[in-house]
């Protein structure tokens, strides 16, 4: 008998027992649907992470004061100042030491932020994020100036009151007018606009387009409350270090660690700073998604197995019910192989039909999941193939035993069966 005949037989058998077939397929449906949703969610999350990597600029190291912990819910990490080490932490000059003494460093930028009211003429914007930084900032953050220019290190050193605007901030303050050469009033200090950034968008929850960028020296001098300024001095929260290639990341971390430990007169074990790479951040995020993915993989795996057992159960019932039919088929010339194929095909068709319904449910489920939650979901062709593959595998694995049992029935006993 050829395969088309077996398919035909299997289909007729399932159609004649629709409700039973549907109930049997439930486990497979749930299993396959969760495979699709699982892969959809993790692929979506991975895509989001990848976007974030490109958003961070390449080959970037983050040197931070204190310790950085990445919690399960944390996206950028939680900053904790080292207790009892008020005198510790990164200082402004650390950045220059790194730039001068560490091999493979391409650019170093320091960031110290503030929040101020920004005014231009009659336009006044509250709570604008002011980013104080150094000349290499656009390079390490992978940003490009669209109009005008960014400030130089000389201007930073001389505490020049200049500003570079994010795209949407410029739009809000000046409308269609050219802001270059204009003056903005930031918390009572007048800054001259020298450049506008290209549109950058939202990266890691930070809207780069709505920020104002100014030399870090200006932030220290003008936008840090005087009492606070005296305590923290020229201490900085974060130094960005860009290295020339991914291969130089490891050695740069070691060199920076040794250098800063020496400068701060601490051992590496009790360092008052921490160095993280994009990789660390990505790994933390991936660990979170992996936990979620594993959970769903378990759900999928368990329900595929339960579904498979259901199929085996029904196939065994079916073999018993149809013993006489098997006997008749044997009498008219069906070989054990023919009987085995007939029941195996039926089990596989049953599980594949479950697979088809499961894929439909899974695709709909992913779509709904993506619509109602923050998680992005992606439907991959490969996940549909995987789902079909596992459904077929389940059908073959759990269908084999009943099919074999049918094949090994003795013709005379099967024929006599009532």
């Amino acid at each position, binding site marked *: *008998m050829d395969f088309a*005949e077996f398919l035909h037989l299997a289909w*007729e058998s399932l159609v*004649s027992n629709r409700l039973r077939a549907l109930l049997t397929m439930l486990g497979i449906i749930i299993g396959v649907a969760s495979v699709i949703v699982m892969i959809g969610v993790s692929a979506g999350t991975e895509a989001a992470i990848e976007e974030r990597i490109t958003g961070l600029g390449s080959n970037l190291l983050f040197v931070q004061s204190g310790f950085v912990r990445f919690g399960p819910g944390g996206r950028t990490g939680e900053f904790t100042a080292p207790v009892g080490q008020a005198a510790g932490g990164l200082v402004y000059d650390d950045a220059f030491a790194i730039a001068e003494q560490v091999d493979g460093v391409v650019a170093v930028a320091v960031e110290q932020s503030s929040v101020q009211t920004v005014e231009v003429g009659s336009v006044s914007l509250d709570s604008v994020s002011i980013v104080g930084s150094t000349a290499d900032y656009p390079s390490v953050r992978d940003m490009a100036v669209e109009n005008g220019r960014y400030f130089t290190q000389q201007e930073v050193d001389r505490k020049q009151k200049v500003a570079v605007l994010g795209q949407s901030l410029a739009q809000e303050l000046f409308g269609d007018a050219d802001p270059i050469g204009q003056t903005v009033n930031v918390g009572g200090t007048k800054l001259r606009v020298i450049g506008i950034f290209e549109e950058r968008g939202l990266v890691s929850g930070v809207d780069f387009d709505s920020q104002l960028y100014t030399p870090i020296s200006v932030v220290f001098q003008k936008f840090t409350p005087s009492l606070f300024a005296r305590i923290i001095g020229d201490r900085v929260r974060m130094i960005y270090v860009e290295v020339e290639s991914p291969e130089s990341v490891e050695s740069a971390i070691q060199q920076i660690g040794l250098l800063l430990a020496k400068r701060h007169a601490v051992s590496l074990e009790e360092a008052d700073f921490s160095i993280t790479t994009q990789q660390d951040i990505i790994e933390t995020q991936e660990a979170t998604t992996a936990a979620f993915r594993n959970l769903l993989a378990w759900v999928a795996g368990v329900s595929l197995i339960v579904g498979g057992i259901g199929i085996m159960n029904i196939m065994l019932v079916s073999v018993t019910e149809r013993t*006489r*039919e098997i*006997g*008749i*088929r*044997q*009498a*008219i*010339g*069906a*070989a*054990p*192989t*023919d009987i085995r194929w007939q029941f195996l095909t039926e089990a596989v068709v049953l599980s594949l039909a479950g697979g088809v319904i499961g894929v439909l449910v899974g695709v709909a489920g992913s779509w709904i999941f993506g619509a109602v939650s923050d998680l992005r979901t992606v439907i991959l062709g490969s996940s549909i193939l995987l789902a079909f593959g596992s459904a077929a595998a389940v059908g073959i694995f759990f269908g084999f035993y009943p099919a074999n049992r049918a094949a090994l029935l*003795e*013709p*005379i006993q099967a*024929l006599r069966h009532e």
Partner: protein
Amino acid sequence: MSILETIDLSKTYGEGEIRVRALEGVSLCIEAGEFVAVMGPSGSGKSTLLNILGCLDRPSAGRYLLESVDVSEMDRAKLAGIRNERIGFVFQSYNLLPRTSSLKNVVAPLLYSRNHRRTKEEKLAIARQALETVGLADRLEHQPQQLSGGEQQRVAIARALVTDPAFILADEPTGNLDSRTGQEILDLLAGLHRQGRTILIITHSEEIAALTDRTIRLRDGRVERIVRNRSKVVTAAVEQVRNGFR
């Protein structure tokens, strides 16, 4: 030429004390074109002989030559092939595939055939032809439960004929039918015999046995005697006269 020949055929079931000898040294020879009845009281080994001759079971000892081929040592797959191509079964309880049309029932043996020279269309044509032979050309798409007992047995006979077997093995083919329908089935079988078919019929009925060329009587697993029915030719002629050469 002998279609089938058994030499000292034995079949025992079980081991040790519960050992049962169902057949003991049965030697038979059936010629091509013969119509033979097998009779015997229950427990005589009739069913066991039927199972072995039908290649549904294997003998414990002895040889079974089917068209000069020794099938007594064949494995299950090979026996299935022999059943498929060389033997046509007709059972007391028809044994049609449930929920399956007459045409599909009759074409089924051809679908199990290992001979792949015919297309599916050709196989269906042969099956239609066989159903026509048994007078059921208008019942092709009927399922067994929509057919009368006699019609079901006709479908079964068509199924037995469709592979052009070496012989037809009919096990009490009229046992479940009323006498009139039973007679129709017997007429059908007798007609096939006249066309040259070899038919082996297992029966309780002396009347049926009388229609055949020879009657093999079994008792306690042995051949008690083999009777040649000389009256048969006469009986058949009388029957035909009585029926007005229908």
